[in-house]
């Protein structure tokens, strides 16, 4: 392998890791929701689309720098998730698995069609000066928005860890995840906690959407692809396992990039799915998952 090819390979892996970081961010939200309330949020990618379109709308209306949209998209995502859990999911009672699956699928359809009616089907870009700027690291060239996305992922996940392991709220969340009935008996308002967790999960998807916007065009059904990715990431790492989701995201990003680099771009989505199937066959609990019996 000559040096040009080595550089290209290193660059591919680095870009894969940064893209994987975004997958991790999306997967973390999904995994968090699943870990606490055993709901697989099939609208997850659509919440990401909301984040993208908030960024787009603010940019078109006020020329707002995409990254400032985080200040809007994250709280809006949280509020939306909180409300949806309270108004829709909490009412489904004990029939959680099927009912919540259908409910989140329906929500996803409502979201993507609302976006379609509001913004049209045409893919839309925003053009900021730094969209194509790069950093050179010894021949390896990395895009600034991609690096910002990677950093954003790190910060978000660190913040989540801080909340989960250093605060009272985090303790209540972990208690709810481990044993909702027990937590309720100890005075934790689990319904409230679940709404907060759903809000946090949705906020994570919205943040990922904002971070994606300078890199990618937005269109109403952009979420579909990312729901699948989030699902793969979560299963790779073990459902409900947060560090697993992070590693799962990075693994998926690198597998996709290397597959596209060495084999063909065209089967890009297939590489992740093959990894997904292999994990399901060999380690059904995920790379880092433990089989836990629920009480």
């Amino acid at each position, binding site marked *: 392998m000559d040096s*040009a*090819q080595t*550089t*290209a*390979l290193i*660059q*591919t892996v680095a*870009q*894969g890791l940064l*893209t994987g970081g975004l997958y991790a961010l999306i997967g973390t939200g999904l995994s968090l929701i699943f870990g606490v309330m055993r709901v697989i949020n099939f609208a997850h990618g659509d919440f990401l689309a909301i984040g993208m379109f908030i960024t*787009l*709308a603010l940019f*078109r209306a006020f020329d707002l720098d995409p990254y400032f949209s985080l200040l809007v998209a994250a709280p809006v995502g949280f509020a939306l998730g909180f409300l949806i859990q309270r108004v829709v999911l909490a009412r489904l009672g004990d029939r959680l698995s099927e009912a919540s699956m259908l409910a989140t699928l329906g929500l996803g359809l409502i979201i993507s069609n609302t976006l379609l009616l*509001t*913004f*049209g*089907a*045409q*893919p*839309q*870009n925003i*053009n900021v*000066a730094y*969209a*194509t700027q*790069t950093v050179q690291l010894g021949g390896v*060239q*990395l*895009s600034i928005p*991609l690096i910002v996305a990677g950093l954003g992922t790190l910060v978000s996940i660190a913040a989540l860890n801080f909340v989960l392991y250093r605060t009272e709220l985090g303790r209540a969340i972990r208690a709810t995840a481990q044993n909702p009935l027990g937590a309720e008996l100890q005075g934790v308002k689990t319904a409230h906690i679940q709404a907060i967790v759903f809000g946090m999960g949705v906020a994570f998807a919205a943040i990922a959407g904002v971070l994606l916007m300078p*890199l*990618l*065009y937005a*269109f109403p059904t952009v979420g579909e*692809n990312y729901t699948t990715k989030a699902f793969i990431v979560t299963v790779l790492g073990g459902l409900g396992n947060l560090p697993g989701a992070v590693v799962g995201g990075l693994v998926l990003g690198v597998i*996709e*990039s*290397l*597959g*596209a*680099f060495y084999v*063909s*771009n*065209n089967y*890009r989505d297939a590489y992740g799915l093959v990894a997904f199937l292999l994990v399901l066959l060999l380690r059904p609990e995920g790379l880092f998952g433990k089989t836990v019996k629920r009480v």
Partner: protein
Amino acid sequence: MRTPTIQSAILLATLMLGSAQAQGTIKIGAITSVTGRFAEFGKMQLAGFKVGVEEVNRKGGVLGKKLELVVEDNASDVNKGLAAAERLVNAGVPIVINEYSSSLVKAQAQYLARQKVPNLVITSSGDDITKPGSDYIFRLNQPATEYARVILNIFRDNKFKSMAVIAGTGAFEKSVADAAQLIAKEYGITIMEDQRYDKGLTDFRPVLNRIKAKNPDGILMVSYAEDSVALMRQAREVGVKPRLFAGGAAGFALPEFVKDAGSAAESVVTATAWIPQLRYAGTQKLNVDLKKALGGADPSYHAAQAYAGVLVAAEAVRKAGNTDREAVKAALNGLTMNTSFGPIQFKDFDGFRNQNPLAMVAQQVQGGAFVPVYPKAVIPKPIKFER
């Protein structure tokens, strides 16, 4: 954000309104993408239709009657496009003008030929639409081979030894990329990479990394609107540096490409079917009229093609002397016209049938705007190279 849709709706309404008022009109059919992912092109075509219909009617209409265009929406979907064609056939129109996407047109053309309705293709350029073609299918725009040829001509003239191809898997992209393969062989240019991708791929970085390692002289990309922006942004990001980036029209030839890709669009050369700098009679005026119809936006070649399509259809009906489909077909066969889109005459050559032989133009983004660079017929500016 909603303006494109609203604009097209207004345009459509204006076209329809014309129909409500006029009595005893000559109706011809047209299909385009009023909605859906090709709506951007549909908007251009609707503007072209409008300018064309107005011009024909200003000059006295057809056979003493006003010309009326019955516009059907394909919603950027193959099946809805077929349904639109069916509605027009049932409405009894003598000729159907269509449209942008080769995947959609191919299905419609086959259906229309079976129904023995003359089909005037104005924009879609998949070779296989007129090769082998049918008695009922006529195309006024250039076939895909020409898109590849004009770019490869530039590569050859500048002594490029190697190139890479990145193309979508749609009918149009495939046609251009396949043609590029053949022409490259003919010109002695080595194709180092030929990467095809399915619609919806958004991360071209691994492929671009691969191409970067091979360092070809030229890169030919054939992609639709949003992909062209993503491709060029990521090409800059990855740092791949051929002597020339070239686009096979479609997304690369749109004003939006320059706007959305920003500095990443600089020095990109693209094939295009028509530009206002061409030296045909009336080209400047057409550009002004189209711009007005688009509310001040710059027209793309799709608008000029739609305009020419209306003129050709009207002329065919006039020559036929009535709206009988067979008579119109016969009239198209013997038609010779000079429009501000270019000369139009349907010929059989190189395996093409009823195909208008028309050369392509190449333009380059210089200083944030398209300038013509090829051929000599447009007074070309010198090409800027990346290295």
